[in-house]
C-alpha cells in the first residue's frame, strides 16, 4: 500500500515522520488503522502502537512471506548484522548478532564511501569495475578507515578499494553465519542487500547462492504488518 524510508537515529522524529508520510501516500487517516505493530530500534519511542516486536521476529515473518523457501536470513542493517535461521512457517529457530563493533555493517560501508568520496548507493557499482580487490586487513571500522586512506595515498584504485570493502563486510558476516550454520535458501535483507558487491562477495565466502530479498529495506516492516493482520 505505502512505504517510506527515512534515515534517522533511534529516539528521533523519524518514526512519526515516516508514519505521517505513509498515511498521505496510502490516502488514509490515522483512525482508519485498526492495529499497529512497531519494530526496529525506533519501536520504543513510537507512541500509540498496539505492540512492539523485535526486528528479528519481524524479518523472519516478512522474508518468509516473500520467499517461502528461505531458511537462513542474513540481515545487514545500518548498525548491526544478524543471522536468523527460520522454519518453513517463518518462525525463528535460532539467531546470532554481531558483537559491539560496526565492522561488517552498513555503517562500515557508509564510512568507507565517505573516504572514497562517493555515496553508499554508488559503492556497489564502483566496486564492480574492479579487476583486483584491495586487501583490507583491519577488522575495526576506525582502523580500516585509516588503512584505506593510506591505500589511497599509495595510489591504489578506488574501485579496487571498494571491492575490498565489500569483501571485508562479507568475510565478517560470513564468519558469523557459519557459527549458526547455513541452510538454503539464503536470503540477504536490510539496506546492505541493495549492494550487489556485498551480495556477490557473501555468496563466494559462504560457497552458496545468496539472494537479495525483494524490498530488502522493508522486510521487517512487512513482517510487523503481517503479525498485526494475524492478530486482528
Amino acid at each position, binding site marked *: 500500500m505505502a512505504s517510506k524510508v527515512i534515515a534517522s537515529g533511534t529516539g528521533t522524529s523519524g518514526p512519526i515522520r515516516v508514519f505521517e508520510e505513509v498515511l498521505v501516500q496510502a490516502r488514509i487517516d490515522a483512525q482508519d488503522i485498526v492495529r499497529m505493530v512497531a519494530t526496529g530500534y525506533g519501536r520504543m519511542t513510537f507512541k500509540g502502537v498496539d505492540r512492539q516486536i*523485535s526486528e528479528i*521476529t519481524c524479518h523472519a515473518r516478512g522474508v518468509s512471506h516473500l520467499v517461502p523457501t528461505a531458511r537462513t536470513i542474513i540481515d545487514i542493517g545500518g548498525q548491526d548484522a544478524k543471522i536468523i535461521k527460520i522454519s518453513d512457517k517463518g*518462525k525463528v529457530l535460532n539467531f546470532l*548478532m554481531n558483537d*559491539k563493533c560496526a565492522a561488517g555493517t552498513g555503517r562500515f560501508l557508509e564510512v568507507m564511501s565517505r573516504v572514497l568520496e562517493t555515496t553508499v548507493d554508488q559503492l556497489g557499482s564502483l566496486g564492480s569495475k574492479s579487476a583486483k580487490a584491495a586487501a583490507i586487513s583491519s577488522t575495526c571500522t576506525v582502523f580500516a578507515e585509516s588503512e584505506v586512506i593510506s591505500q589511497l595515498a599509495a595510489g591504489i584504485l578506488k574501485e579496487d578499494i571498494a571491492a575490498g570493502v565489500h569483501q571485508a563486510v562479507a568475510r565478517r558476516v560470513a564468519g558469523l553465519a557459519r557459527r549458526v550454520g547455513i541452510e538454503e535458501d539464503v536470503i540477504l535483507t536490510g539496506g546492505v542487500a541493495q549492494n550487489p558487491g556485498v551480495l556477490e562477495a557473501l555468496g563466494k565466502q559462504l560457497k552458496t547462492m545468496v539472494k537479495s530479498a525483494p524490498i530488502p529495506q522493508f522486510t521487517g516492516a512487512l513482517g510487523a504488518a503481517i503479525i498485526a493482520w494475524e492478530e486482528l
Partner: protein
Amino acid sequence: MGEIGFTTTIPVEIVIAAKKKPVDLNNLFISSPRPQELVDAAEQEGYPRNTCGWIKGLYSVAVKRSLEAVIAVIQGDCSNTQALMETLQLKGINIIPFAYPFDRDRKTLETQIFKLMDFFQVGIDDVLRVKARLDNIRRLCWELDSMTWQDDLVSGLENHYYLVSSSDFNSDPFKYEKDLRNFIDKAKRRSPCKGQVRLAYIGVPPIFTDLYEVLESMGARVVFNEVQRQFSMPFKTGDIFEQYLNYTYPYGAFARLEDIQEQLEQRMVDGVIHYTQTFCYRQIEDLIYREKIKLPFLTLEGDKPGKVDARTRMRLEAFVNMLKA
C-alpha cells in the same frame, strides 16, 4: 573491626575467624549509587578503555575505601587482577595474593589456605567453627535456590541478589541471615509463578543493573544463576578444603560445565543466557559452552554498568519470543 576487601570469592571463613569484616569489592562496586563514575575514575588514572569494567570498578572502590588489606585472587580468576593488585600496591594498599590451583590439586590449595590463615593468625579450629556457623546460613541460600526452581516462589532477581551476596554475606553474616530468613518466610506465603519461560543464566554476574527486571517484563524468569549459586558453596561437606575444591568458578570452563549440565537437566530450563564481559577472556570460552550445551543459547555482552541497552534488549526480546513460539 578492620575491613578486608577481596576481588572474588575466597575462603571467607578465615577473614571472619580473624574478626575482620569481609568486603566483596564487586558487590561494593555494582551496588554503589553511581558505578559508572568509578569506572571513569579508573580510566582517568590511566586504566585503558579496552579493559573490563569490573576491574576498573574494583580499583576505584578499593582506592576510595579505607581497607586494612585486599585479598587479590591472582589465579583462578581474570589475569587482569595481577595488574589491579600492582596498581593498588602503588597506592599503598596492603595486598594479600591468593591462588586457586588450575589443576584443582588439593595439596596446593591446602598450602594457599594455610598461608592465608597464617597471615590472619588463625588456627584451623577457629576456621572450622566459623564454617559451621556460615554453613547454617548457606543452607538458607540453598533453600532459597530450590524455592526458585522447584517451587517457583522466588524470582530470578531475588535469587541473584541473595546468592551473589553470599560471597561476603553483605559484610554482616548475622544481619544477612536474619534478612534471608524473613524473606524466605514471606516468599513461602506467595503463590507459585507458573507459565513463564524458564531461563538459565551462566557466567559472571551481570554489569547491567536491570537485566532480571527486563527479562521478567518479557515473561521470562531466571531459575538458575550459575556463578551466584556457586558463591553459596552448595556442597554438603564439613571439610573446608573440599569445599573450595568443589567450588567450580576458579577451575576453568570444563569444571563449570559439569555443574552447569547437571543443573540444566534438573531445573527444566527452556534456554540459556551466557553473559560475558566486554574484553574478557571468557568471551573465548563462549564457544565451548555453545558447542557443549544443547539448548537454545544466547550470548550477551555487557560493557559499562547501567541499564540494559537497546541492542541487548532486542536480543533478549527475540530470544524470549523464540522460546515462547
